[in-house]
């Protein structure tokens, strides 16, 4: 099967919108179809990876749990916007998976190197 490099950028807070889960669903499906998928968490989306979430308290699906399954789909590399982590006072150790912190220049490069970019 043809393979393309797909970059999916999440930028919104974990709950209260359909975007975050919908973006993850695309990523998982594309990975299941053996595409090269990279995920980038920007702005409020850094909170999606927090390891302390208890979304069942408000009847939500645990997005962090969904993310923890990503390596099983061969989505190994999770990029996180460095500036967003800093602004939100989040440390890499607060996150559910190992991440690669990236700055704006690296993000621009990631976008350039990908065949398809979807930003939710």
């Amino acid at each position, binding site marked *: 099967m043809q393979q*393309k490099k797909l970059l999916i950028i999440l930028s919104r807070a974990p709950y209260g*919108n359909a*975007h975050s889960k919908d973006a993850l*669903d695309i990523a998982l499906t594309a990975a299941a179809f053996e595409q090269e998928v990279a995920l980038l968490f920007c702005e409020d989306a850094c909170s999606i990876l927090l390891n302390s979430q208890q979304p069942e308290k408000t009847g939500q699906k645990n997005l962090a749990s969904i993310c923890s399954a990503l390596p099983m789909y061969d989505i190994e590399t999770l990029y996180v916007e460095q500036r967003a982590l800093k602004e939100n006072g989040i440390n890499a150790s607060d996150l559910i998976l190992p991440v690669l912190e990236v700055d704006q220049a690296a993000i621009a490069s990631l976008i350039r190197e990908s065949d*398809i970019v979807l930003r939710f």
Partner: protein
Amino acid sequence: MIFSILIYGSPTNSLSVESAYRFTKTALAAGHTIHRVFFYGESVYAASSLSVTPRDEVDCFQAWKELAETHDLDVVVCIAAALKRGVLDPPEAKRHEKLAYNLAPPFSLSGLGQLTDAALTSDRLITFGSA
């Protein structure tokens, strides 16, 4: 050029459905191929045949229906997004024991695999989305 279009905005609360329509129509007029139009998220409502549009407003359902029929477009509606929003075709309505269905040809329900295929098969995948 082979285009696929991803629509990700409400027909009533965003311009995504309309912008995607304009782009698709223009691309077709210029002789390009539209491989697939994939309705995701809130845009699935655009495929409901039960919407009643005021006379002085554009009926986006009718517009897409006519465009799709005229050009034999593959207008696919994401099944997961559609079901949870109450956009069902006859088999799904029956399967889930719902009162009625509101999705009919040329629209069809399918999964994200069709979006992935569209991404792989097309020269360009263009997203029209909204918050």
